[in-house]
């Protein structure tokens, strides 16, 4: 069990490397491989190749948020690790690398390492585009009392959220309009039920602009007969960019 031929054929060595990386070697053989890695360049190359082949599979383990204390522990250990041996889980390792590696070398290496990591990450990732977010508070024109909030966190749709249930006469309806600077006139975004959140798809409209006007007017139950606001403004507000 402990022995392997001193001159592995390439296939046997590759099989050993593959099972080492896969994790199925028994403790004794694992230790054996780990000790050989320091001196056996061929085995190391075979192991590295297998690490590379299988690495993607690590993504099958669901990420897990660390406890808030973990970073503090690491920081403390790094600053005090000098001559201690905090590596409990590495009990099987016999290298006393902490004695061999002066602190400053580690620091320099960490810098190099951060650079490499950043380069890797930059090359393999695309930064998610953060859409501009807008917020509109619609207030009653008479007393400036806020009645609705519009939230636009995605370019596809905006949400009209009531802050209360303002009564609407039974023979009337609230109609939702918007107009940006430079538009011919207001565009209807549909009828609104008092007290209910309304999601409005806006992907057919030009992108939201700062200062874009939104308003709710009182119209006939079927909406404005002319396609433009005809009734009194109930609530009005302008878009503010949220950073």
């Amino acid at each position: 069990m402990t022995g392997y031929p001193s001159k592995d054929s390439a296939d046997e060595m590759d099989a050993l490397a593959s099972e080492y990386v896969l994790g199925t070697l028994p403790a004794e053989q694992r230790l054996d491989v780990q000790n050989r890695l320091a001196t056996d360049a061929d085995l190391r190359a075979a192991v590295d190749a297998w690490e590379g082949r299988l690495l993607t599979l690590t993504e099958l383990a669901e990420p897990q948020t660390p406890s808030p204390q973990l970073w503090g522990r690491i920081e403390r250990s790094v600053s005090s690790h000098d001559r201690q041996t905090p590596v409990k889980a590495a009990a099987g390792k016999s290298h006393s690398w902490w004695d061999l590696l002066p602190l400053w070398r580690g620091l320099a290496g960490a810098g190099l390492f951060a650079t490499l990591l950043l380069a890797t990450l930059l090359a393999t990732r695309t930064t998610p585009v953060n859409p501009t977010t807008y917020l509109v508070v619609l207030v009653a024109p008479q007393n400036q009392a806020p009645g609705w909030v519009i939230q636009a966190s995605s370019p596809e749709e905006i949400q009209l959220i009531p802050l209360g249930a303002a009564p609407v006469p039974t023979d009337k309806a609230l109609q939702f309009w918007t107009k940006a600077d430079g538009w011919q006139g207001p565009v209807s975004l549909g009828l609104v039920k008092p007290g209910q959140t309304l999601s409005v798809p806006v992907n057919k409209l030009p992108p939201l602009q700062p200062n874009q006007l939104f308003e709710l007017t009182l119209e006939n139950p079927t909406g404005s007969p002319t396609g433009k606001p005809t009734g009194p403004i109930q609530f009005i507000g302008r878009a503010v960019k949220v950073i």
Partner: protein
Amino acid sequence: MHDLYTQESARLLGVAKRIARSDALAEDIVHDAFIKIWTRAGSFDPARGTARGWIFSVTRHLALNFMRDNAHTLEVSEQSESAVLAEAALDVATEVDSFEYRARSGRIYGCLEQLEPARRNCILHAYVDGYSHSEISQKVGAPLGTVKAWIKRSLVALRECMG
């Protein structure tokens, strides 16, 4: 170092947790991995692979070492054992995939696709869950010798497929 932590700690912890099967132990392992990465960063050789791959390898092997070194003292708790058995029962005749490996990009997935489901499960239980031969044998309900042979041959097949 803190950037690296922010960027990768959740993924590393996920990897360690699957193998160590305990939150506390997984955090110990990630802690140890970071110390190791920090102290050995000077010996990192870019010719041996990507920095990111290295970090994951360090974490996985610390977790595997711990599990193998403590194999004789760690008893599978009754709860996790019954969970294992219940899951095994779900893998009807080992023809069902235990892992959501499809719809992922990466050469390895295309190559795994070419293996029989039972063998694919063996490889994934070993790599992702850190199961030993006998644990896999229990899990997939196949004899130990069969599992060992499946894994050996599957690795050869993966090697041929991936180059």
